[in-house]
């Protein structure tokens, strides 16, 4: 079994690596000190199990797990935590593997043997502990999983089944309902149309096209987007505040 160890603290990684290496049938294929590297390494080494610290700066463990679950062959995930008052209960409830720090030698083996993939429903339940929004949007592309920083996203536009994510350097397609994106990023994005959310931070201006017709211009996006009549007053209020 190929094991990837992810923790922002080197000493914690060292210890886990030593413990895992000492076990028969397990091999440490990589170590990462943040979520982004973890995702790249998991793909590169085709890891079977990821030992994932929950508290990490930038992208935390829960978000990393969410992106990992998007992989074509998602690895099993075991969370590591020093102390999370309610998390332990939730882990048990969701039947998600976890290790408590300081990690015990015997529990490493037991948890590794039982390691399983985590699915979105489990992660959503775990995320309920600390309502947090992702720092990145992940999309499956031909290059593997691509991570787009949320602050880089210009707009989300829904199209029948998929949602197009337009960001600084291009576009990707994701499979998430606009409604959930709107809820998650309520403080960053504003609904301008039944099918579109735009980043408030990238709004350049609101333009009036004719009677009852307006569109919005976003920085770095050539094509203006239609603003529907229903959302016009809310958008106008927001633009005035900017």
């Amino acid at each position, binding site marked *: 079994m190929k094991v990837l160890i992810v923790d922002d603290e080197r*000493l914690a990684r060292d210890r886990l690596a030593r413990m895992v290496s000492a076990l028969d049938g397990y091999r440490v294929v990589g170590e990462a000190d943040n979520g982004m590297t973890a995702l790249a390494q998991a793909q590169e080494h085709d890891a079977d199990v990821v030992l994932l610290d929950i508290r990490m700066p930038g992208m935390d463990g829960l978000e990393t797990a969410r992106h990992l679950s998007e992989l074509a062959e998602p690895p099993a995930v075991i969370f590591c935590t*020093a102390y999370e008052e309610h998390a332990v209960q939730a882990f048990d409830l969701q039947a998600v593997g976890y290790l408590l720090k*300081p*990690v015990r030698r015997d529990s490493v083996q037991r948890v590794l043997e039982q390691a399983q993939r985590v699915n979105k429903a489990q992660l959503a339940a775990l995320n309920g502990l600390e309502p947090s929004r992702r720092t990145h949007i992940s999309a499956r592309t031909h290059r593997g999983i691509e991570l787009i920083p949320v602050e880089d996203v210009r707009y989300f536009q829904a199209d029948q089944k998929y949602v197009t994510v337009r960001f600084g350097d291009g576009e990707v397609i994701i499979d998430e309902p606009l409604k959930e994106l709107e809820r998650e990023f309520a403080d960053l994005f504003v609904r301008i149309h039944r099918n579109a959310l735009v980043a408030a931070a990238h709004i350049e201006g609101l333009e009036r096209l004719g009677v009852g017709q307006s569109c919005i211009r976003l920085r770095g996006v050539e094509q203006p987007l239609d603003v529907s009549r229903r959302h016009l007053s809310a958008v106008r209020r927001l633009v005035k505040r900017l």
Partner: protein
Amino acid sequence: MANYISQQEPSGAPAASGDHFAVPNLCTAPAISLLVLFGELLVVVLLFAGEVSWMRLALLSLFVQWVALLSAAALCLCRPLLLRLRLVPGALAAFALALLVTFAVGLIADRVIAGTVFGAPVEWMPIIRQLVIASVIAALALRYFYVQQQLRLQEQAELRARIQALQSRIRPHFLFNSMNIIASLIETDPATAESVVEDLSELFRASLNEAGNQVPLEDELALCERYVRIEALRLGERLHLDWQVEPVPGGVRIPLLTLQPLVENAIYHGIQPLPEGGTIGVRVWFQDGRANVEISNPVPDAAVQSQGNRMALENIRTRLAVLYGSRAELHSEVRGGRYAALLRFPVGDAAANGGGAGPAGRVL
């Protein structure tokens, strides 16, 4: 009534210190009006215990209100003296005062009814009846005040316990992460593991100490250094420390665990969330008879002042106020992308000016 009274009492009065007599403060308008009301209730009881008539109602009211108001006035006047007595003598004195007033009013009433001062013999029976009733009522009232005081003391004790719990709170995360570090180092670097155990022990010893103990400023700074040393092992390259501490003049003291929580906050809110880490600044300097301590950290973008941080600051502020009054201050500000907490307190005569009473003013 007692509710009013207990709120009017200055909390720092010696009456609050356990085995002292709780002299009810009857010198306030709400207390007096409640007293009048209770007096009339007693009148109603007495009225219906015998023949019911307007005449008796008037006479009983006149008598009871005189006794009640004069007792209140007497207690009010003697309060400073009574407050100095212990529980039993104090209660007895208040009891005697009330009976004395009853006796005097009864005697005067008897003379008024007799219409002469020396012309007729005193009717002792009514006066004795009045004294018996008065002693029962006074005893009940004193018992009531006593229970009330006990309740208040208990509340204060609970509050103190809560403050102490607040102070000695070491983040569980810190504890378990430190244990993890030790577990990791034992195999590879036993010497460092050993020093982490030592540092951690010192921090715990401090956090188990009684709230409000004062220590030399150097000791508190050493505690901060220990804390930073442990966190540096955990955060590695991400944590940098800019330590600029002027030599501390002798005798400068500070309540234990005043600075360490500020350093802890700086790391927790300023360094931990930053993938690239940053620098914690600790500056200590002395100016115009005051010590200045500034602890600063980078502000992660979109960082909001967390509840925990505010609570820690509020907690430290309260403890400083007990010791130094308005001469100590704790400010926080964001300037040039850094968050800074600035603490100023007078150097030297802190203990002498402390609250004196209570655990907060005690010197180690």
